[in-house]
């Protein structure tokens, strides 16, 4: 029993110094994540969480184990306060403290006895149990809908931003070209306005 408690205590300690990162691009690899977080502290392990049940565009998430809990806290606060991007922009990643349920290889919590029982059709609780089952599926549907909505929002934002980006880029290109081919200079002379001369390339 002692060993179980120790194992669980070690596990809890590990959880404290692990951070959960999501909104990662699918292009991010372990090496990239490790390199990007190495500047904050010693990264021991990076493990991606496989996505079995959710739609594909949700973004990758990973559990990053660090050397100690302080490093973990620092990273979380840094990432939360300013936009940190890994492997693509401008969508920043999110980080928060890991929870025990995020690990699928966790040890058994000691001191707990699991009991279960089958309900017969004559049992008074059967109705309630059936309702609960319905509730579970209802909740699942709600979650699915919420997720869909979220993904739609994200895509909308991405589209909007692409447009803005492209428009801004065009503007800059235009300015660049105008300055570059000295049209701006000549116009400035005409209108007696002072404009910086284009640098000779």
């Amino acid at each position, binding site marked *: 029993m002692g060993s179980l408690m120790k194992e669980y205590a070690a596990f809890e300690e590990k959880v404290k110094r692990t951070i959960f990162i999501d909104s990662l691009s699918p292009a991010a690899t372990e090496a990239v994540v490790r390199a990007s977080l190495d500047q904050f502290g010693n990264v021991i392990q990076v493990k991606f969480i496989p996505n079995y049940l959710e739609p594909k565009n949700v973004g990758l998430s990973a559990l990053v184990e660090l050397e100690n809990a302080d490093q973990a806290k620092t990273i979380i606060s840094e990432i939360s306060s300013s936009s940190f*991007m890994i492997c693509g922009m401008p969508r920043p990643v*999110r980080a928060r403290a890991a929870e025990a349920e995020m690990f699928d290889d966790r040890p058994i919590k000691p001191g707990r006895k699991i*009991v279960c029982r*089958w309900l017969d059709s004559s049992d*008074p609780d059967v109705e309630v149990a059936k309702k609960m089952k319905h509730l579970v599926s209802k909740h699942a549907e709600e979650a699915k809908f919420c997720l869909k909505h979220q993904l739609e929002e994200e895509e909308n934002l991405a589209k909007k*931003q692409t447009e803005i980006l492209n428009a801004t880029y065009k503007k800059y290109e235009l300015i660049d070209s105008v300055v570059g081919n000295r049209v701006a200079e000549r116009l400035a002379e005409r209108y007696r306005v002072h404009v910086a001369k284009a640098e000779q390339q």
Partner: protein
Amino acid sequence: MIGTFLQEKQKEMVPSIHDSSPAMFERLTSHCDKYQMFPLQEAAEEDSPEFSWGAKKGKGALNKDVQFYKSFTYAGVEFNLYDCVYMYRHGEEEPDIGKIVKVWETKTRKRIVKVVWFFRPTELTHWLGNIKVLGNELLLASGEGVGLSNCNPVEAITGKCNVVCTSIDRRNPQPKDRDLETAEFLFYRTFDVGTQEISEKFPNSIAQIEVEHFFNKVTDLKQPLHYGGKGSLDKPHSFGGATVKTTLKDDQPGRNTQSTLPPVTLVKQTKSSTRTDQCTTISQCQVTELVEKGRQGRLGNVSETDKTVARTEVKHSYCTPSTNALKKRKLQDLSDTTPFDQHKVMKSTSQVIEVTTRVKEGASTWFKERPWNDRLQEAQERGTLVLLENLDPSYASTEVEDIVKHALRKTVSAKMVQHNTFSNPLNGKAFLIFKSSEAAETAIFELKRRCLMLGDGRPVVARKGTIQDQVKSKDFPGHLSIGKLKFQKLGEEMRKAVSTSHYAQSNTIEHELAVEWRVLQEQSSLWWKALHQEQAAEIEQLNSKLKNPIKNSV
């Protein structure tokens, strides 16, 4: 090399099998290549289990470079000639069982064992037809042909297996009751792979080995099995408040002998209805414990890897009088208690089943299982994948396996699904891989038809598992690029910045866009929180309507 030569030969002989059911056919042929696929090169790597040879037996007659042995030690376990072992076959959930009949090392330092196979009844349904088989019965291969034996690398062995022969052949030393209890499997019939006949008669030799070697060893039966004593296994542990009464075993040795494996009770009619009533739920746990102990007993002081030892140590409270008292009380409470049939597995009354950690039968723990991902994909294809929902999210994967074992009487491999960004903190999910698709279907059906309530008053929901394709999508909404051509114009630095990581600088567009994203992220986490809170409230409401909640003692 002898190994591949034999396999080649067997491959050639395949077409001659007529009228074999497809499953058998595939199994026999697949033996040849599927074992080879198991990485041989791992033998050379440092992290593979340690191996050392035991007593030598002599050199090969044909090939002087081949050295035969009588025994070897692999990963801390000693294997002797004529021991029965589990062998893992690539792509199968269940290991195969065979008897080692030859052990040798080739010139190229490859360690090979030749095993004669035992067939599981499920593999011979075509020939068994309506003949009844016992739950843990095997059939020994005999005769000549494909499927009789194979030569495989030692590394394919995943553990020792305790197989007892119960044949009444006069050459077979009869097993005692104790041996039957500790046996994992038994056999008394053979399946001739040439004539495809099942028979209770044993020929004089199988695979050129005298049949006496296939019967029980004379020394086996004299092995003392210390399930009464206090070995290193019997450390008293308390689990969940109920203390282990290891002394119980001392007091009631008689009880142990009576609680045999359910199938074996068909053979040995030791029925005493009161005793077995109490024992039904716990018989499974007890026997697996005894099996472990039996194995430990035979191996002497050699203990298997830490994991199995840790599990055997947690042999807790299923024998305590308190559990029986609880059961009795429940029996009195409910008005319509039907007397339960000792062979009927599902309880007809709402009996509280205490879920205890069981010892892993069979495959030993040093064996590296295939990566979970592959197993999931495969299980989905075969229809053996089930998704359980509404579990307590703090369960460990092994606890889920135990629950299924106790409630559904099925062995599964389970893993909890890791919580993600959107996971409901109250709802734990787990993937189960069953051994067959029928087992999976019956399990889902049972869970749908009846309600399995967990400790905190929540019913387990099961459905067919489907997993997303693990193909990574290239595009990620939110990661923008200005267009390929233009991207190339951007300098080296720019590219570096994108491919690694950086902070947004406040005078760039990037920064503004990033802030927009963060706003969206905050919004989304808020609405998820709200959703989960609402759902939790709904669950609470229903929960309070439960009349007999079982309190989980956390």
